[in-house]
């Protein structure tokens, strides 16, 4: 058991633990905020780095994201999402704001369209926590199982900074088709994650 101030944290559940840390951060507990950073920042930095394709910019986005988390910790609603998903969407949105404001999406889009996609298939040997590596592999496996056009639409919608309209325009496909691909892709991923790949 770890005790911060008046609140005790039990490592019963990862999500609950993260949520408790956010609750403590909302009350001004700097130690809890630092622990939250140590727990979430590696995954979030990985995401921002992939999105920005630049270490310095990724670091700026990560800092903006955690500044937001510190300031807005009191607005986190555990009923709406897990703490991890909340944090992912915060840094993802910060990255997208930056990407869009700098109009660098074209370069990133070209990179993505070319071949590799955003999920590097050669990073199994990189230094990760075992759980992260397992999650990482599971996500990539799930992505392999959905239709390629759905995977492309979902990855572009999540990582590229392009709006759905821009994705439709870039791919030369009607907006409704793109939205449907994103929706179906996400529903399949949800089912995979829920039931196991």
């Amino acid at each position, binding site marked *: 058991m770890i005790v911060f101030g008046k609140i005790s944290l039990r490592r019963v559940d990862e999500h609950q633990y993260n949520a408790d840390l956010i609750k403590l951060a909302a009350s001004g507990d700097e130690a809890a905020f630092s622990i939250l950073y140590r727990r979430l920042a590696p995954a979030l930095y990985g995401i921002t780095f992939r999105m920005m394709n630049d270490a310095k910019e990724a670091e700026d986005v990560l800092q903006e994201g955690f500044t937001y988390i*510190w300031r807005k910790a009191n607005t986190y609603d555990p009923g709406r999402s897990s703490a991890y998903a909340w944090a992912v969407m915060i840094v993802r949105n910060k990255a997208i704001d930056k990407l869009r404001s700098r109009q660098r999406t074209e370069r990133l889009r070209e990179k993505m369209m070319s071949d590799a996609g955003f999920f590097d298939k050669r990073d199994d040997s990189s230094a990760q926590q075992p759980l992260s590596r397992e999650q990482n592999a599971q996500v990539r496996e799930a992505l392999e199982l959905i239709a390629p056009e759905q995977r492309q639409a979902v990855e572009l919608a999540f990582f590229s900074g392009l709006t759905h309209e821009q994705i439709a325009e870039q791919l030369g496909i009607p907006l409704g088709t793109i939205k449907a691909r994103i929706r179906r892709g996400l529903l399949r991923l949800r089912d995979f994650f829920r039931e196991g790949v």
Partner: protein
Amino acid sequence: MINEDKQQQAIDYVLGEMSATDAASFEQELNRDFELQAFTREMFETLGRLGSGVAPIPPPPSIPQRILRRESRKVLPFSFIPWALAACLAIGCMVLGTMWTRARNEVANLEQRDLLSRIRIAALQSQVEAYARTSAIVVWNPDRKNGVLQFERLPVLPANQDYQMWVIDPTQPQPVSAGLIPKSTEKERRVAFSPTKPVGETPKFAVSIEPAGGSSAPRGQIVLIGQYGE
């Protein structure tokens, strides 16, 4: 069972594809509809998991200290404390990139080439969620005490309200008006401005929502604020 339209709305909401107005209305619906709430949560979680498909990278360890140090410096003894607090948010947030390239043409009009180094650029930060997608920079000429505000995606206001530009000079008792931003539905715009009173070398800039016709001192909500050179 949630129909496809509702599913699509939830996905647009989670991915940030909705306008601020639509998002607010969707949130009201979320509060009433538990099934929609559960579906939206599932989409949040699915996208969160999608994020975990990217390989983690060891992050810079100093970021929490940087954030906490900066945040703890925000208690200032001014009468317009909210302004000063909000201004601090802009420290270290210089957004240049492509917008800088565009703004250079405007800079050239403002100043002779040898004064280029004197030109200052400030990135304005949104202070409210509805303006999170608004990009705004100020190109400021400290010699002539005038500037250009360039912005994208500034939400359109109702007829009874105007955006007003302010220059905040620490030596002045209150922010100095720099004029109203003319109404337009264009996505990307530039507006030249100059403060109505003399200001110092290192002012901050802000945009607030005021009653139509503007105010002599800021009364409405500050939606954008920033300072250069920090």
